[in-house]
């Protein structure tokens, strides 16, 4: 009985150590891989067709998920804000509360997490399968560098798509807040928009969200292609790489979000 518990604890500790080692190992190797992609980016830019295709795969195909999620996040923000603020007779400010929350935090973060789930997994399993079926080695045999031809355009497509998706998410969220607050709960429309416009600053709020989303786009795309490219070339390896891509991207985005917020707020 006691022995069994000890063995269980040991298994958990080993798992934690394994994950930590994996995370920091990824961190170092990921930076090298990032440099390798950056050096080869001019090649991807010289073939815009490939990049456009990847913006389509990463962006357009995530659009419905992002728009629906944004709409409902905005609606629930307005509902919660109304529920609490109406106790103080301040339900006029729900537009402002929802807009600030969406533009500064929820827009960039939730978009990045959804992107990791919707497009990041597709990227890493696609590249992982190319690795497992020796397509990448085949390219190398034909003197085509897979980093230039496969990884670069996919990375760039993700980097371009995430900020656009973020802006669309925030806009949909604010429309959702308007729908819930003004149309359903009956907050005065003029006050809704005027309070929002009075409190939301273009540079400090809207632009800080866009800056965050650029960083998240780089992190999410990089981790997705990295995990796929470096997967163990078996069916199980591809599955594991896909899981790791989502887990590492989510963690990285959340940690990075705190650091970026501290940096962006620290300026004032």
């Amino acid at each position, binding site marked *: 009985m006691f022995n069994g518990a000890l063995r269980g604890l040991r298994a958990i500790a080993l798992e934690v150590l394994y994950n930590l080692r994996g995370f920091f190992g990824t961190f170092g190797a990921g930076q090298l891989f990032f440099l390798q992609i950056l050096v080869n980016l001019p090649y991807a830019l010289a073939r815009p067709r490939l990049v456009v295709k990847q913006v389509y795969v990463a962006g357009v195909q995530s659009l419905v998920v992002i728009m629906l999620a944004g709409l409902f996040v905005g609606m629930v923000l307005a509902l919660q804000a109304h529920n609490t603020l109406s106790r103080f007779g301040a339900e*006029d400010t729900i537009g402002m509360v929802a*807009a600030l929350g969406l533009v500064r935090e929820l827009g960039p973060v939730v978009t990045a997490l959804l992107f990791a789930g919707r497009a990041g997994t597709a990227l890493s399993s696609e590249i992982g399968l190319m690795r497992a079926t020796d397509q990448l080695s085949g390219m190398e045999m034909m003197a085509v560098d897979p980093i230039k031809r496969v990884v670069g355009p996919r990375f760039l497509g993700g980097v371009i798509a995430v*900020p656009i998706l973020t*802006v669309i998410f*925030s806009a949909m969220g*604010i429309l959702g807040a308007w729908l819930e607050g003004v149309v359903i709960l009956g907050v005065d429309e*003029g006050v809704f928009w005027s309070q929002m416009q009075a409190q939301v600053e273009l540079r400090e709020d809207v632009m800080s969200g866009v800056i965050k989303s650029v960083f998240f786009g780089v992190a999410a795309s990089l981790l997705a292609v990295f995990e796929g490219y470096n997967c163990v070339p078996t069916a199980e390896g591809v599955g594991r790489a896909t899981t790791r891509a989502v887990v590492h991207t989510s963690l990285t985005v959340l940690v990075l979000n705190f650091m970026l917020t501290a940096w962006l707020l620290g300026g004032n």
Partner: protein
Amino acid sequence: MQQTRAVELGTGLFVFMGILALFFLTTRVSSFDSQVGAEGYELTARFDQVGTLKERAPVSISGVPIGRVTDIEFDSERLEAVVTMRISSRYDRIPEDSDASILTSGILGGQYIGLQPGGSDDYFGDGDEISFTQSAVVLEQLISKYLFSQGSGGE
């Protein structure tokens, strides 16, 4: 080829949507839009103090919203704030001796203009000025007034 066209078109549309969303965020969410109901007639009113009254704030009579504030400016000759508001043409029989005051909704709520109907048989028309106005109450002034009255009463 056909599919490449579709992909390119879709991507272009996607980028366009992004620009549209950014435009929405910059103009509608973080600054003023000038499209406040073009119908109705305009009234102006002069106040010593408008407090935190904002453009697009509602104008109401007996608690019913009848229009919106469209413009707030400072008249540097008469040293007063000039508030322009647009009243819906449905409410065209407001006595011209009505008075306007700046009121607050709730503790944290925004400020609005409340009209108190007068008894005149003449009504406001487009471009008229409300002559009887009552300024916004500023909390600091209220407190200092109270403190000074306490001080003088004690002596």
